[in-house]
Each structure stands twice: as C-alpha cells, then as structure tokens.
C-alpha cells in the first residue's frame, strides 16, 4: 500500500543538497538533490544499519560516514564494500514547489 507523502519544499534545497526526512520509527529517508534532480533512498546503510545521510556525496555516489560503504543514490545499488546489498529507493515527485515521496 503505497502513498505519496509530503517530505520537503523545493526551497529547502536552496542551500543544501540533502535532507533527512523522518516519517517516524525506522522510516527515515535521505532526500538528495543532484543536478536539479531529486532522489530518495533509505537513510540506513546496509552494512551496520547506521543512518548515513550525513555521508560524503560525490556526484550520485553516497558514502556512508562510518566505514565508507558506497551507494548509487539513483538505483540504490551497492558500489563498494562493506555495503552488504542495495538500499531501498523511493519515487519522488514535485508539485507546487513541494516534494513528495512515495512510501
């Protein structure tokens, strides 16, 4: 059962390229803006389940700040050890300058 949830405003990204969106519990999602496109992935690294949204972002590559596992934020694909598998990705849409995530 998927639904579109309001996550942020486009203007939130004027000065930053990412947001940690918190839908409560373990529903934490990293929302990223790269080259004017938005991407949403699960905020947790598949290696040790730590919140990695604060990690280093290089192009579309997000690196977990704890051990350097790397993911492609477009596909969720794991690019480098110690990532144990892909991270979940979510669809994103923009309406009236508001960003929605499909969860």
């Amino acid at each position: 059962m998927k639904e579109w949830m309001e996550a942020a405003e486009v203007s939130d990204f004027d000065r930053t390229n990412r947001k940690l969106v918190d839908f409560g519990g373990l529903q934490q999602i990293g929302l990223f803006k790269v080259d004017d496109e938005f991407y949403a992935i699960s905020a947790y690294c598949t290696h040790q389940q730590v919140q990695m949204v604060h990690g280093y972002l290089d192009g579309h590559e997000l690196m977990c700040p704890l051990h350097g596992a790397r993911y492609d934020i477009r596909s969720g694909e794991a690019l480098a050890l110690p990532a144990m598998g892909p991270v979940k990705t979510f669809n994103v849409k923009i309406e009236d300058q508001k960003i929605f995530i499909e969860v």
Partner: protein
Amino acid sequence: MADIDTENKLVDNEYKYGFVSDVEMDEAPKGLNEDIIRFISEKKGEPEWMLEWRMKAYQWWLTKDEPRWALLDYPEIDYQDIRYYSAPKQMSERFKGEDGELDPEVKRAFEKLGIPVEEQERLQGVAVDAVFDSVSVATTHREVLEEHGIIFCSISEAMREHPDLVRKYLGSVVPYTDNFFASLNSAVFTDGSFAYIPPGVRCPVELSTYFRINAMDTGQFERTLIVADKGSYVSYLEGCTAPMRDTNQLHAAVVELIALDDAQIKYATIQNWYAGNAEGVGGIYNFVTKRGHCRGRNAKISWTQVEAGAAITWKYPSCILQGDGSTGEFYSVAVTNNRMQADTGTKMIHIGNNTKSTIVSKGISADQSKNTYRGMVQIMPTAENCRNYSICDSMLVGSECSANTVPYIEAENSSAIVEHEATTSRINEDQLFYIRSRGIDEESAINLVVNGFCKEVFKQLPMEFAVEATKLLEMKLEGSIG
C-alpha cells in the same frame, strides 16, 4: 625452513629472534603529515593516482577515532612519535634505479632467521619475498614463477610494473575507509607482497613473505595483495619477527585476497613478533586487517594462523563469500603468555548461495595473559542453503589468565544452518595424569596435550610450518605451569 636455523636450534625460553642488525638506514623523520606521505610515495616512485589514493585515505583517517571496543588494554598511541619510513640505505638507492648489492647485514639478519634471500641459496619449493622494515629486499624463485606467468614481487614493484592490476584490485576488499588502522595503512603503507596467479595455473611453489622489523620507533605498514584468477591455486605463507626492545612498536598491515571463479587461496601465518618481557614491557602492537573476497563461483579461501607473538594482537582474517558455492575456512591457534593480549577471530559473510564456512579456533592462555576469540557469521537474506560450523575452544593454563569467547551470529535466510560450539576449561587433568603415569615428565605431558588440542589447526599447515608451530608453542608454554 626449520633445518636451516641451526644456530638457534636450542629451544629456550627467551625470544630467539630478538637481535638487532646494524644497518645503515634511510629514514623519514618521525611524525605523520601530508609531506611524509608524499615522501613515501616519491621514495617508491609511485604513479600519481596512488598518491591521490593515499591522500584520500589520510584525510579519512584524520576524521576517525581509534577504536577501543576490543577487550584490550594499552596506552594511547602517539602517531606523531612513529617513523613511517625506514629502509636499508642501499635498498633505497636501488629503488632510484642504481644497481645496489643487498646490504650484507640485512642478508645476515635473514640468514639468522633461517630465510635465505639470495637465489643460489633459495629454499626448495618456497618462493620468498623478504621485507625489512619498510621495504622488500629480495624475492626469490622469480624465473620459475615467470614461466607460469605468475607475478610475485613487492607491491612497490607491482605498482610500477603492473599498475593496471594493482589499480583494479587494491582497496577493493579492504577500502581505505574500512577502519582506523586500515585507513592509516592505506595512507602510509611502505611495502608488502603482490601475487597474481593467472587463470588455470596451479602455483608450483609455496609463496612466502617474511616480515622483519629492525629499526627503532618504526611502524611497519605493509600491504599484501593476492589475486587468484579463474581456476588457479596458490598457497601463501607469512612469517614475522622483530627485535627485543622495551618500547612498543606498531604494526598495522592490510592483507587483501581475491579469488575468482574456481580459484583457491590458502593463506598461512606464523606470527611471532616480539611479545614483550614477562612484565609486559615492550613488544609489537599487531593491529592487522586481513580479508579475503571469494568473488567468483566455487572460489575458496582458507586462513590458517598461529598467533604466538606480539604484545597485542588484534586481527580478524575474514572471508566475504560472494560467489555462489564458495567456501571460507578459518583455522587458528592463538597462544598468549606473560602479559600478552589477543583479540582475534574471523568474519564469514555469506552473500552467495550454497556458500560454506568452517571456523576452528583454539585459544591457549597462560600466566596473566588475555585471550579473546571474537567472530562473526552472517547469512544474508538472499543467500540460500548456506552452512557454517564453528568450534571455539579455550584452554586455561594458570589461574590469573582470562579467556573470552564472543561470537556474533546473524541469519536472515530460512535455509541456513549455523552451528556454533565453544568450551573454556582448564587443561585436561585426566589426560595429563594418564600421560604422566606412563613415565613422561609434566612439561612433556603438557606439550603433548596442547599439541593434541591444536592438531586440527596444525594439520592445515605445510609440513615445515607445522614443525615450527609445534616448537613455538612448546617454547611459549615452558615454565607456565608451576
């Protein structure tokens, strides 16, 4: 190896590899900063990408704190009080392209250790890469290996001669972000061995690296990279010693193994770094990251280790079992005496289907030492039909030592079968009594029982190593039982 070290044949309680060689050294000043890293990179004549990689690792390292979760107790390490590069002068010059002879003192040192480094005296069936402080000084058996297309050389040489291979595989198993000590190693590693076994080749000799720390206040940061291409086989041995000194020296190595489809790597270590004296003064801090990656189908990586030295040992040779049907093995004997501390074990990460792993760990603690097995077995949700069997036994010799067993097991697949067993107990009195009743003295009886305890691991070692390991154990435990 054993028959050559005649002059040290006498088994005594003292550390017999504790001598210091007087070699003219080319050293970097103490401390760590970007200039030192540039200095090391330049000394090695490295390509630009390598220096960039080192710098990235250094930047990452700066942001991290030294981990303290292990059951180990040691004072703060001052990373600015360590020398990160130290090489016999002649070697250093040779790297600049001049043809230098091997320093006779270095040669003598290796002879004393029972490691012949000149081609004419080489060991039958074992190719040796000898590493003295920060550099590799000699590699034997090169022609035989070249015939088979096998590359076996120091990693510095590999970087110059086979940059594509190194670039492809270096850091792919242990990225520079992996942990504090791996980051440090990636920034400042000085030498180590590189081996590449081409597809379908069964390496005709054992490959071996002998690490020797000689210089004072020097850290040893070696990096070993072994790649077994499809269907190949290699057996690799590693030995290590250092002089007796009353200061602690840091050894932070990284070993990466990569096994492609149907390839097999056997990696054996006999670690006998200087462990400090009976009061726990001096000795090597052995903080090592070793990891194997079964990247292809039906690949196999087998770790065997005999950890008998070092003041502190902190290492977990691990296997990432990614290829379907791949196998990981870990056989370990860790013996600690005096005030030694060891926190060692393995990780088996099952990612592929039908992957199997076996863990056999035997810990022996004597005197006031601390011996911890820490291991992890992880079965990923998509890994079908995986199997792990672990057995971890600890033997206590004396009443002031401690033995800990901390396995972590995680399974997320319903077809997985994981079994773990562990026991901790005193040396078996019934067995001792039985042996002694046959007229054998207590010391020999203990040796027999301990040898029996470790047999499952020793039989994984090549013969010469097994003999060496048995002797080492006897030496360690001598006088431990009052």
